[in-house]
């Protein structure tokens, strides 16, 4: 009985490490798939057609990271402001404007050849493998960000509060399938 107990905790602990190595493994395989994906002929979907040269690709992933970090910062500031008890509409407005502007740029920030096979990025190969879905998710987020921005511009705090959850959901709906965990 006690051995079963020990074995159970041991197994649980093993699961912890197995879970990790599995996801790493999965990431690696995805990375390889992307490598082969990057050499496929260019196409004229919403994502940029031809793969850029390496130095340009690295600059794109870097700028993209900065842009998304700026967007994340606005999301954080907005959440804090709304939870503060007495939100300042001007602070709210500044964040939603940043969010709507950044959201509009998302689809153009992921040209082919800027995936994890090229450089350090948390963009998953699925972005290019399931391009249409990715574009749809980024549009959903844009719509949510524009709606909350309109409410903020109109000075309607109650509506901002009501729309906030939609923005969060749209953000998560795209990040869960298309972004790798933090490095």
């Amino acid at each position, binding site marked *: 009985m006690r051995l079963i107990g020990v074995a159970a905790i041991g197994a*649980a602990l093993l699961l912890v490490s197995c879970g990790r190595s599995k996801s790493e493994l999965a990431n690696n395989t995805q990375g390889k798939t992307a490598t082969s994906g990057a050499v496929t002929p260019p196409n004229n979907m919403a994502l940029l057609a031809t793969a850029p040269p390496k130095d340009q690709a690295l600059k794109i992933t870097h700028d993209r990271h900065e842009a998304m970090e700026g967007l994340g910062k606005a999301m954080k500031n907005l959440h*804090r402001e709304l939870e503060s008890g007495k939100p300042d509409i001007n602070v709210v407005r500044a964040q939603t404007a940043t969010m709507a502007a950044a959201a509009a740029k998302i689809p153009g920030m992921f040209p082919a050849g800027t995936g994890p096979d090229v450089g350090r990025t948390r963009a998953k190969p699925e972005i290019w493998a399931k391009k249409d879905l990715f574009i749809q998710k980024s549009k959903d987020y844009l719509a949510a960000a524009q709606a909350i921005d309109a409410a903020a511009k109109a000075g309607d705090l109650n509506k901002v509060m009501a729309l906030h959850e939609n923005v969060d959901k749209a953000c998560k709906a795209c990040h869960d399938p298309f972004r790798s965990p933090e490095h």
Partner: protein
Amino acid sequence: MATTKQPVWDLPVRLFHWLLAALILFSWWSVKNHHTDWHMWSGFGIVTLLIFRLLWGFVGSSTARFSSFVRGPRAIGDYWRGRWAGIGHNPLGALSVIALLGVVAVQAGLGMISEDEDGLYLGPLAGLVSTDTSDKARDLHELWFNVILGLIALHLIAILFYRIRGKKLTLPMITGRADLDPGTEPMRRGKWWVALICLGVAFGFTRWLVAGAPPFSP
């Protein structure tokens, strides 16, 4: 030598132990699978458990009380040389108990002031610190989990080590009873209603923290 089955761990200690283990596992699983809300509730559960255990460590059964097992270096030395007889945590194991409780408490505290990287989830006490501090707390929260894993590994290795030497530790943590040499001082049981009060206080205090620790002024 004739031995008899005697109570060593009361029900609150055993429930605390297994619930804590389960919630740590669940916390890890939920956050890895993007269930940040479940992860947070699991953390609040752990905070409740920790507060309960702290209180029970002062007013609980004899083997649950810190005063009965937290000892100095001399007692640890005596234990090392085989000069220790008693029930409950031995003086060396006590260090492990304190360390485990401590690292889990630090982890819970870091979680309470953290925010996720997208600003979707705010720890209940994140409003008390800046965005930068919350972000740093989240990074530390992630790193600190490795410290917890290390101590859990040590904990399991110690259990295996004792098992090889013929001492069973896991079964008593399930049944609450162990073989004791005759003449060993038995466990003095805590009162069930005191345990309920501790649990009530732990729930209440955690609720207050989850509400963002509002001031008590009217």
